[in-house]
């Protein structure tokens, strides 16, 4: 099915000089606003039942096909063990495997560029595009490029850049970031796309997804041919052979890496796997967990530019290896496994929070549970811990993760870390009072009595402290007597 371009990376760190490429992305936003806006947008989206129903419907087919494909595995759980071990083994030996990958990649004729942060990565890509004397740049889906706000930087320097993945193209025309890092425009209705294409491409209205896809297909074909530079992401970096692996469905990444003179790939360094053979496990799992497919349509391994004797292919191949705070996550052994993420998006698809608040509410490059885990590392826990609170801790994300990242437990870790570094005064006082009350049975009984009697009054008065709670809920009927009293009364009966 979809535009799988699960690529690369993480979240941009705050670089105030970055021009915001999208009005709703909040790297550049004043941090304190992040939580406020999250609460506001979440409330708004939760009330939007049309939006919720639309997202649920869109995911309905995914659940079915995912389960069909999972059942083709003779043992999905053992496959998860193997996949998580392959990633664990690679991430924990990056000091050895990353140099090995780079040596082999260079032996294949590729050039490696190291970027400590988003700013450095943008400069590298801009210099490469400049050196190529590029008139046009075509891109296939690449989340690290969203992370470093590459499009805005290219456009600011006067380079036209076109997103070739259908979903990303639609989002580019809409001037919005991806809604979901695997299904970028899953929130957009076909009528809106028809209008959008009508406005930008001058095409006639249609309500057929097929016709809309063909409009984009026709529009894009010439652009692949005219582009001088093709930019892609990377899903895996194979240390053993120096190849990069790109997963997609549409063929746009294949075209992007075939026709332009220069191919630039951007990837977080944590995408390294040791053996080519690891892909025999990881590729089918990525497709099954991410899109309910046995394998996505095109899984391609690139080893440098065109070789002598080959018909076509780029003259140069560059790889930008991005840190951008990944080393900070690596330095936390407890949450290091969040670097195992293969960006399949399965945790978003099953998350009750994601399905209710939607992708934009997060305000992050990576939405959903995995985004809530890693964003605080990259943009600061104090300002982004609210994402860890936006979880029912149901564990659906951890169950869905093909590489067994303990996602919901990491949300708890973030909460714990936040409580340590910047304790919430009200919570602290609240807990103190509770301890005081709970240790004195007579105070507890008195408090209960008081509460039972004032409950109808609270209901009527709606004091400010309870107003948020009461906005969508009702208080229960007060029981006539306390639990302890009832227990005492009924015990003899229970004994029979």
């Amino acid at each position, binding site marked *: 099915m*979809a535009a799988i371009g699960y690529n690369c990376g993480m979240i941009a760190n705050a670089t105030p000089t970055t021009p915001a490429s999208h009005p709703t992305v909040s790297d550049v936003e004043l941090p304190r606003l992040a939580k406020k806006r999250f609460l506001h947008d979440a409330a708004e989206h939760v009330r939007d039942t049309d939006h919720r129903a639309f997202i649920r419907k*869109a995911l309905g*087919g*995914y659940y079915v096909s995912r389960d069909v494909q999972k059942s083709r*595995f003779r*043992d999905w*759980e*053992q496959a998860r*063990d193997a996949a998580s*071990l*392959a990633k664990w083994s690679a991430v*924990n*030996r990056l*000091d050895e495997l*990353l*140099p090995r990958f780079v040596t082999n990649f260079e032996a*294949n004729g590729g050039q490696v560029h*190291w970027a400590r942060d988003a700013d*450095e990565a943008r400069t590298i890509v801009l210099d490469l595009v400049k050196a190529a004397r590029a008139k046009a740049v075509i891109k296939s889906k690449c989340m690290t490029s969203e992370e470093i706000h590459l499009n805005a930087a290219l456009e600011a320097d006067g380079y036209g850049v076109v997103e070739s993945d*259908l*979903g990303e193209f639609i989002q580019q025309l809409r001037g919005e970031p991806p809604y979901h890092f695997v299904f970028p425009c*899953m929130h957009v209705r076909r009528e809106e796309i028809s209008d959008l294409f009508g406005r930008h491409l001058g095409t006639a209205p249609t309500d057929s*997804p097929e016709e*809309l896809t063909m409009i984009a*297909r026709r529009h894009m*074909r010439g652009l*692949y*041919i005219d582009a001088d530079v093709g930019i892609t992401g990377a899903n895996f970096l194979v240390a053993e052979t120096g*190849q990069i692996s790109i997963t997609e*469905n*549409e*063929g*746009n990444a*294949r075209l992007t890496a*075939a026709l332009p003179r220069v191919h630039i790939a951007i990837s977080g360094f944590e995408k390294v796997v040791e053996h080519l053979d*690891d892909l*025999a*496990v990881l590729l089918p799992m990525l497709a099954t967990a991410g899109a309910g497919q*046995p394998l*996505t*349509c*095109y*899984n391609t*391994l*690139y*080893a440098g530019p*065109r070789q*002598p*004797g*080959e*018909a*076509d*292919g780029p003259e140069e191949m560059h790889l930008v290896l991005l*840190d951008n705070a990944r080393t900070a996550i*690596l*330095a936390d*052994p407890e949450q290091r*496994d969040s670097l195992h993420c293969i960006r399949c998006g399965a945790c978003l698809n099953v998350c009750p929070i994601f399905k209710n608040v939607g992708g934009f509410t997060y305000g992050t490059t990576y939405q959903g549970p995995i985004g809530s885990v890693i964003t605080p590392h990259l943009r600061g826990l104090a300002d982004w811990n609210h994402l860890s609170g936006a979880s029912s801790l149901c564990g659906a994300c951890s169950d869905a993760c093909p590489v*067994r*990242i303990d996602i919901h437990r990491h949300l708890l870790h973030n909460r714990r870390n936040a409580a340590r570094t910047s304790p919430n005064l009200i919570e602290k006082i609240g807990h103190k009072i509770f301890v005081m009350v709970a240790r004195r049975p007579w105070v507890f009984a008195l408090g209960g009595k008081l509460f039972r009697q004032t409950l109808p009054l609270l209901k009527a008065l709606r004091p400010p402290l309870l107003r948020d709670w009461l906005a969508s809920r009702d208080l229960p009927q007060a029981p006539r007597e306390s639990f302890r009293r009832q227990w005492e009364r009924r015990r003899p009966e229970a004994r029979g």
Partner: protein
Amino acid sequence: MTGNSGGSAREVILARIKEALRVPAPLPHGIAAALRSQMGLLPATAALTTSGASAAGSASAATALPTLTIVPEEVARPWLPDGGETPEEQLHLLIENLGKLRAVVHHAVDFTAASEYLFTIARERDWKRVAWHPHPLVDPLLAGIPCATYRVDAKDFDKHALESCDAGITSCEALVAQTGSILVSSATSGGRALSILPHVHVVVATRSQIVATLADALHAMKALHAGRLPSMLSFITGPSRTGDIERILVLGAHGPKELILILVD
């Protein structure tokens, strides 16, 4: 393209990584138990060292991190999707999977039959121009092309000419029963664009090219191209597709709308 304040970016990042990895991480959630129950997954010694290291959780264990790899010769991976044991099973699986992917499979008893089939589909679809590349499996089919052709080779490749073609005919490196994938390479399948730019992709292959699993295909590539891997290896799994509009499946997003496999006995 490296920074120069306080060492190159490469040195800085590698130093950060080294520093970060000084404290070992525990094994993935649930893995320690899994290891005990299925030691076949790993060499026994590695498994023991690993669970020991994670249980101890001490910084000194960092040096004891084992090399954990899964090597197909040693492990059959009986938990992945089935690839079939016998050639018959593999053929059956391949065809079943390709069907589900909405690819077309045509059996031909010999190259004459294959050529006739190509003639028929070219006529039916009214192809004006077909691209091909010189290859022992492709050459015998040329007689079956009732229209203009464009030959793709290393000399003066013309992307505009290729774009004007209705179909591209290529050979392949292998066929994967497990997933219904067709493995093409830049070395033996006419470069990178021939199998992706034309609207229809026709693949000519023989039954002997069928392998059971992705791992088998990858291994075959390493053995076959021992000196140097082709600059592109691509597993093609069905015609190009997208679900980006309301998650509804549409074939032919940017790559071929149709994928036709001619399987010669």
